[in-house]
Each structure stands twice: as C-alpha cells, then as structure tokens.
C-alpha cells in the first residue's frame, strides 16, 4: 500500500533524534503556551518562528506543529482550573470543565480533556493520512452558500437543544450577534455600530474579550458572592489511583469524544472555520445526543470531552487546506504557512508531489506529538491540582491578573481591557438572572463568518435565498439545521398532544 510506505518513510524522519527531540520540546512548550490565557498557539508559534532557523526546514515545521498541538492540549488546563479559556479554541471546554473543577473533580476533567484530545488528535491524523487528497476536494467544494449552511447548523445545535429556557437562549444569541456586527463591514468597508465613535470598536469586539470577561471576571465575582468572603479551599485532590480510575471511566465519554473528533476534523478542513467553531459545535451536538443533556453546563464530562476532541481534530484538519490548497484554516496555520514559504516549501496542490518527504515527515510527527502531549499533560496534572488548592484569596488576584493580561495581549489595546471588565459585570448579572451565556459566545464567534458567507452567496444568487437549498452540499445541511431549529417546537407539540399527567413545567 502506497500510503503505508509513505507513512513508514515519514516515521523514519519523525524518529530522527533531532526531530523527536523537537517534537517533545515543542509539545511541552505548547502545553504551557496554551495554558496561559491570552497566549494562545497563534502568539506562541509567531514568537517562536525565528527560533526554527537553527534547525533544518522539516524539523522547524515539525517543531512549530508540535507547539500548535501542545497548545491545543494546554488550552483546556486554564479553562478547567481557572475558568478562563486559555485560548479561543478552549472556550467550550470551560462550560463543563469549570463546574467539574468546582465540584472537586478537576483531576477527572483534566484527564478527560487529555484523553479526548488524544483520541481526537489521533483519529484526525489517521483521516489525514488516508484521505488527504479527497478531503482537499471537499474543502474546495465548500463555497459561500455551504459555509453559511454550516454556520446555521452550528447555531441550530445550540438553540434546538431543549431543556434550556428558549427565549433566554435566543436573547443571548442575539446579543452576541449584535456584538459580532460591531466594526467594519467586510463587504462594503463601512464602519458599523461604532459606539460614541470610540476608535477601539473599529476592530470589532474580539470574542476572546467577551469570553474572558464572562468566564474569567464573571466567574470570579460569582465565586466571591457564593463564598461570602469565606476562605475556600478547593476539594481537588489527585492520586495515582484516582488517575487510573479516571482513565477507566473514559468509556462513558467515548461517544462524545468520537463524535467530537469527526465533527472537529471536518469543520477544521474548511478554510474559513478553524478549531473554535468546531469545538463549539461539538459541544452543542454532544449535548443533543447525550443521555443526560440536563447535566450539561453543570459538570458533565461529556461536555469536556467533545470540545477537546474537536479542537485537536480541527487543528490537524486545518493543516489540510494549508498544505494542499495554500489556504490556512486557522490563524495559527497562517503563520505556519508563512514559515513554510521562507524555506521554499510552497504550500499548494504540488506540495504532496514535490516535497513528499516533508509532508509525510510532518504527518508522522503528528502521531508522535499526540502521544507525547498526552504523557506530558498527565504527568503535570498533580502540579496543576496543587495550583487549584491555593486559597481563593491568593488564586483570585492571580486569575484577575491573567484575565487582564490575556485580554490586553492579542490587540495591545486598553480598550479591550475595559470591555473585559464591563462584560465581566454584565456576565455576572446575566448569570444571576439565569441567562445562558454560551450562546452569546457562540454567536460572536460564528456571527461574522455567517454574515459574510450569507452576503457573498446572496450576491452571487442575485438575492435569492434558494441558493442555500438548491446546491447539493448546502441543501441537506440547511434542511438539517432547519429541523434542529424546529425540534423544540415539535417537542412542545408532542407535550401538548399527550394529555398531561406529568406536572407542568417539567424539563423535557
């Protein structure tokens, strides 16, 4: 089998001592970069790009890819431990990871995240190995209409869930959409919703700002209130025995993990999307297919497994359009792409033919990176748990500082820091009023993608909405999305038809 030959060849490259060392070093470094809020894989890879001039091109790209990979594992850590998403890709991990940590199950959440990341990463590399060229064709087949249909599907997975308060969910989505519209209109270049002409709004509201505000600051306010100033110590503990037990219970989350892996991978290969929408969608779908959807958001391990599997799978997935089409599927791959150009490794359809050794060396190193990321991650769990056992009076200022730094770092604009503080207070109030906050974050991530693709598709179709239903790929996706949107209505009707012995107001 030709692919197997290539892969064996690739492993020979990946296992060269230098390359192996670079993978391990890269994974460890990436883990910490990912765990630091605001210092996501994008910044990490950008900062370390020049360091790679010390080694040959293949080793350099392998190193950068390992950082990217490690950061995907690391992003979960601060999401779970501190409730601040370490990177945009780990926002969805916060939803259930943080509640688990508060219940003293931080070790379990971390193990779940690590194993799910491993499965997601491995499944996606296998898919990459076997089907790179046909999947590149799938990525090409996705035009504006398909992209919009996919975004609708993502929204639908969140809104059609049932169990939540639908009007409040809608409110949360719409407020997120309004925020996402702030800034410069992509199609016409006109400024929109620039409040009081404050220049900081011109670059839009970055969703990491919203996420850090709501989850970082908001969470801290919440904890202060609920603990009433008492010095609380987390119940989190960790022993080898507990880790082994946690690994055993992995089978409970296997469904969510596998689903997240495939979903994340396919979303990842689409040029515009990347790992963040992938992980958010995986969370929504995991809740839909779960036996216990009502426990999502309250510390369900499936809610950690699905997005973590998805973001790792998507990070591999987003390398596919980069390598085969020369179009980065995520901001980090865009920087990887820049790195490749300088070494004369021009990404594009010819790369697989002209630089086979490089391509297969990189693919093989992704397998290796997966194994080492898992090992390093698990090895450091006791250290993370120790941090969590610090008294809240010490932890709170640290979280606060990390929130501010994390918000300032990407744009280096104080405007964003003020926004974080405002969002923090508003998020806390919304939480008190029992508004779900995740849909707002989802909307601010997907809103701009959905808007642009919808307007492009409508321009092409002369304003006819049929374009979303007529095309062979976007049609089925769109119909699925519609069905999901209407699911709560069906459920409601079903409940009406059945004469009601059950007390009203019961969760469906």
């Amino acid at each position, binding site marked *: 089998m030709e692919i197997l030959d290539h892969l064996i060849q690739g492993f020979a490259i990946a296992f060269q001592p230098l390359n192996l060392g670079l993978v391990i070093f890269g994974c460890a470094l990436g883990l910490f970069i990912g765990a630091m809020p605001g210092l996501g894989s994008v910044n990490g890879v950008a900062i370390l790009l020049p360091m790679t001039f010390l080694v040959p091109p293949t080793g350099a790209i392998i190193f950068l890819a390992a950082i990217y990979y490690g950061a995907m594992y690391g992003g979960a850590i601060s999401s779970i431990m501190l409730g601040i998403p370490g990177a945009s890709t780990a926002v969805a991990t916060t939803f259930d990871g943080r509640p688990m940590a508060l219940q003293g199950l931080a070790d379990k959440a971390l193990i779940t995240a690590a194993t799910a990341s491993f499965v997601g990463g491995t499944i996606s590399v296998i898919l990459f190995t076997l089907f790179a060229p046909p999947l590149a064709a799938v990525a090409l087949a996705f035009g504006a209409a398909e992209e919009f249909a996919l975004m609708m599907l993502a929204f639908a997975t969140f809104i059609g869930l049932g169990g939540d308060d639908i009007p409040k969910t809608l409110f949360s989505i719409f407020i997120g959409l309004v925020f996402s519209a702030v800034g*410069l209109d992509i199609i016409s270049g006109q400024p929109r919703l620039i409040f009081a002409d404050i220049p900081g709004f011109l670059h839009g509201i970055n969703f990491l700002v919203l996420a850090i505000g709501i989850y970082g600051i908001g969470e801290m306010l919440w904890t202060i209130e609920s603990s009433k100033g008492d010095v609380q110590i987390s119940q989190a503990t960790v022993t080898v025995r507990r880790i082994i037990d946690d690994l055993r219970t992995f089978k409970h989350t296997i469904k969510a993990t596998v689903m997240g892996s495939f979903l994340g991978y396919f979303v990842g290969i689409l040029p515009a999307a990347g790992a963040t929408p992938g992980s958010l969608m995986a969370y929504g779908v995991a809740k839909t297919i779960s036996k216990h959807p009502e426990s999502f958001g309250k510390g369900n391990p499936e809610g950690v497994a699905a997005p973590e599997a998805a973001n790792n799978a998507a990070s591999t997935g987003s390398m596919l359009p980069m390598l085969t089409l020369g179009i980065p599927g995520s901001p980090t791959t865009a920087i990887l792409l820049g790195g490749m150009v300088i070494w004369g490794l021009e990404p594009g359809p010819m790369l697989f033919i002209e630089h086979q050794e490089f391509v297969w060396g990189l693919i093989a190193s992704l397998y290796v990176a997966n194994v080492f990321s898992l090992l390093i991650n698990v090895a450091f769990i006791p250290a993370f748990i120790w941090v969590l056992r610090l008294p809240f009076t010490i932890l709170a200022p640290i979280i606060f500082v990390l929130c501010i730094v994390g918000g300032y770092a990407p744009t280096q604009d104080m405007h964003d820091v003020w926004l974080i503080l405002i969002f923090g207070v508003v998020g806390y109030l919304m939480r008190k009023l029992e508004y779900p906050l995740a849909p707002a974050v989802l909307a601010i991530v997907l809103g701009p993608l959905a808007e642009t693709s919808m307007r492009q598709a409508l321009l092409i179709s002369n304003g006819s909405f049929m374009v979303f239903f007529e095309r062979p790929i976007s049609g089925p996706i769109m119909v699925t999305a519609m069905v999901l949107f209407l699911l709560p209505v069906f459920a409601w009707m079903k409940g009406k038809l059945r004469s009601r012995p059950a007390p009203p107001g019961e969760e469906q």
Partner: protein
Amino acid sequence: MKTLCKTAVVPAVVIVVALVFSGIAVAGWEPKKPVDFIIMAGKGGGADKMARLMQSVIEKHKLASKPFIPINKPGGSGAEALVHLKQKTGDDHTIMVTLNSFYTTPLRQPGLGVDVMTFAPIGRMAEDTFLLWVHKDTGIMNVDDFVKAAKSAGNKWIMAGTGKGQEDQLLTNFLNKAYGLDMKYVPFKGGGRVAKELAGKHANSTVNNPSEQLGFYEAGNTVPLAAFTQDRLPLFANAPTFRELGKDFVYFMQRSVVGAPGMSKEAEEYYRNVFKKVFQTEEWQGYMKKKSLQGEFLTGSDLKAYWKREKDIHETMLKDIGEI
C-alpha cells in the same frame, strides 16, 4: 609611545570608518520593543505571504534587534489597518505592508480621515502583477473565448475579488468596459480565498496575482488568459498582455512598507535600512523572480512621488466607475 599611538589610533579609525559605513543605524535609533508589523489584508493572500516572508528574512539574517510581529487587519478593504496606523500617529513601533487599497480605500471613504501622504515612506519592495484567470474545466483558452462566455452569461458571470473598490474590482470594471461585459463582482477576504473560489468553481474568473494562483496553476487547475503588464511574464509566457490584444492597459500593485504618520526621522531611517537589506537578500530576490514580481527598491521622496502619481491614477479610475 609610538605603539601606544598605533593601538589607540587603529581602533579609533576602525570605529570611525564603521560608523560612516553603517550610517545612522548603529549610532542612532533602535526599536525598544517588538515592532507591530500590520498587514493590510487577510491571511493567505499575496500581501500576507510577502509580509511573513519579510519577517522571516529579518529574523533569519538578524536585520533587526527586536522581532517584527505580523498582525492581520483585513477589515473593510484595508480601512481597519489604515485607521489603526492613523491612530498610531507618532508611534515608532508600528509599520505596515500595503497594497493599492492604500490609495483606493481613503479615496472611497473620506470619512476615515486618512491622508496616506502623511505616512512614513519606508520602502517599496516590489510591484506585483495581475493576470486574468479561469478554471481549466471551462475549456476557455484565450481572451476571445472568455469574452464570448462571459457575454452570454451576462451578470451571472461571477468575478471573485478581494474587496470593494479594490484592485480586483478596478480590473473587473476595466474588463467590463473594454469588452462590453456585465460580470458580477463578489468580494472575499484575501487573495488566497479568492484563488480557492476559482479552483472550487464557485467563481467563473479572477484577476489574482501570480503568487496566489501559482499552486493551482502548477497543479493544472487554473489557466492564465492574459496579463495586465507591460511585457509578457516569463513565468506565463503563453499568456499575452492586454497591450498585445489592443487594450492599452497596464496595472500594478505596490508592495510597500510604510510607517505610522509622524514617525521620528531616526526610526524611519532605521526601518529604511532594514528593508533595503531585506530587498537585497537572496531570499527576497529569489521570491520576486519566482512570483513574477517587478520593480526596484524605492524610498523617501521618490516613494512619495510614486504614491502621488499612483493616487491620482486611482482617483481617475475610481471616478471612472462611479465609486467616488
């Protein structure tokens, strides 16, 4: 005593000579923190790849003491980047890679209050070329075929481009006017994305730069029909120029580096030296050749004169199509 004189004089001479040759760069200004390297376009496009190449060359040859951090600000046909730079007036640590939206976006949106002539002229690194591209499966092999097909499709013929009122739309309008077509222009984020739209057959044609289409061209997916250049491009020798086809139209895209308005003279000089060195490296020269880039390094008042000329040309072109 004599030896003492010698030992004192020789190093002194060396230092003086070194100072003279290295100019102000050594004695003068150096960045005190990482430099924001703004890219006026989306990721994966021609401007983006080039900026990242420049960054890598700077790092590789250690041409600067602090790292250059690329930041994409593609919003609103470069408006986001221009406004950002304007806000950074007087800042010595913000520079930007520009293209022709440098002229067109402020002309189209006077409300932004951006006057590009106030920006610090650091250096023109190259001029990029444009070609007309179609997908191979259309069977279109020359401009005549193209005109026939586009004419019969009317406004159902989709031309994908990189933003409203930008280079690609100017070229689309030129083609519409010159050949009596009614192609519809649909903007996407970044030239890389535009190239993909053509390869995926979501668009009927594009006017990509060579660097954006090269991968798909080499893989045999897309075909260049004609070039908007003075002479045929060595890389695409089979594609005639529009001049040869009787339409006297030549259009380039600048690939320049500019500094924030009001940047100190010392900083401007520092960046000028850095980018002049980048221009001279083997990597940059090789890249220019490989990607069909043209033009000499231009800086200071020469670059400003060039901007003035180009700005006037664009003003005429935009008025021509009723954008302003």
